[in-house]
């Protein structure tokens, strides 16, 4: 077999993944914290004030990365859920379910910082425009996935049911992203473009990109540590889990 395929196969085994993730974790946490520090410093101190919004625009450095993460994590969860449903891979079930609370946290941050930003900019905490609403629906979808996962006794069955729900809810993602194009709303259109020139000053742009990368690392770190614990719980009858418990007891 192809060595890469073989490695993926090995990664799918819980004890191997546990150790592998354990080795990666410190690096991910380090990268995440360093990125957050640099990004926030760049955004709050180095970037010049916006000519329209003055300093209020600095909320962008937490709002937009969180918004992106809320969508990214949902997609990640749905993809893993799909793998879990079709191929019944335990690691995918665990990863999908570990991603859900992190995604919910980022969605919450996006909503909270967005409405804080909305007060000075639009003069209201909340309007019923398409992007805001669909983001709220996204939060409910996350909560639904979490609730369903918690409500079922058998852990693997719970993961599969919740993954299924996550898949159904994926229709909401394009609505969140494209709603600003489909309906004219209060909310900002796309300002940062992957291809073609972005619409903002590069001194404002780079901290945003750093924050975007840092939140990715934060997600990865949190995901791995959650998945590790969940695997430990899921496999508590197995030998390797006992050995880890014993090792921790001695330490």
């Amino acid at each position, binding site marked *: 077999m192809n060595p890469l395929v073989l490695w993926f196969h090995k990664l799918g085994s819980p004890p191997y993944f546990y150790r592998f993730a354990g080795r990666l974790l410190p690096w991910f946490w380090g990268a995440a914290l360093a990125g957050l520090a640099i990004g926030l410093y760049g955004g709050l101190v180095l970037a010049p004030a916006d000519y329209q919004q003055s300093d209020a625009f600095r909320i962008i450095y937490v709002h937009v990365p969180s918004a992106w993460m809320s969508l990214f994590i949902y997609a990640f969860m749905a993809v893993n859920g799909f793998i879990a449903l079709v191929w019944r891979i335990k690691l995918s079930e665990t990863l999908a379910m570990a991603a859900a609370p992190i995604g919910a946290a980022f969605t919450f941050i996006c909503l909270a910082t967005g409405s804080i930003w909305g007060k000075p900019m639009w003069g209201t905490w909340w309007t019923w425009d398409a992007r805001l*609403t669909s983001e709220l629906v996204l939060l409910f979808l996350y909560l*639904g996935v979490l609730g*369903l996962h918690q*409500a*079922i006794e058998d852990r693997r069955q719970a993961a599969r*049911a919740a993954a*299924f*729900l996550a898949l*159904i*809810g994926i229709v909401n993602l394009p609505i969140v992203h494209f709603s600003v194009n489909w309906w004219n709303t209060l909310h900002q259109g796309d300002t940062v473009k992957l291809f073609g020139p972005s619409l903002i000053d590069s001194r404002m742009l780079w901290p945003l990109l750093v924050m975007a990368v840092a939140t990715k690392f934060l997600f990865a770190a949190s995901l791995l540590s959650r998945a590790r614990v969940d695997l430990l719980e899921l496999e508590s009858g197995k030998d390797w889990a006992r050995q880890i418990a014993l090792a921790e007891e001695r330490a």
Partner: protein
Amino acid sequence: MSYGSTTSACRALLQRDLSLVWRQRGDALNPVLFAVMVVALFPFALGPEPTMLARIAAGTVLVALLLAGLLSLDALFRSDLEDGSLEQLVLSPHPLALLLACKIAVHWLTTALPLLLVAPLLGELLYLPQPVLPVLMVALVLSTPLLSLIGAVCVALTVGMRRSGMLLALLVLPLYVPVLIFAAGACNAAQQGLPVLAPLLWLGAGLALALVLAPLACAAALRISLS
């Protein structure tokens, strides 16, 4: 020795479910009563001014019917689960999605259809403007089956769970929001004298899609939650 065709399986299922509803026709009135009461609460809560009530009439009727439908969803598979009929359905070699489509159809006929019939009365309670009523009815005709289909998928996911009521609401409502938006959009357009076709067409498209996909999703979800 005949193994029976899929058509005859569907016919048997429809016949059984309809005669069950007929035996308990009192229960079938409950969603209607609930919707009437929710609508009746609004004049108390908002005061009895006709112009204001007329303004919110269509939306309130929509929300009331949606909530009534939501609360009746729980019963879709419950009795079949409790007496083991659901196991027999799942074990039958006929396509499960088709059998479930029959069950959903009966559910729609016996809960949503009565709600549709009282909708004009509910509108009247809130002084719904005459020209809006036909649009509201068309929107309801298109959206109630859609709601039943989407709801069935979520019920299938929570079947067999204790205390599933609230969880079901949490799962279902986010998925109901788009349907509500289009239905209400049509009514509001009618109220303002604007063209109403576009949102109704969207509803129709959604319904066509759900008619095909929802039974399949429902079957898959049911298999997951029965294992």
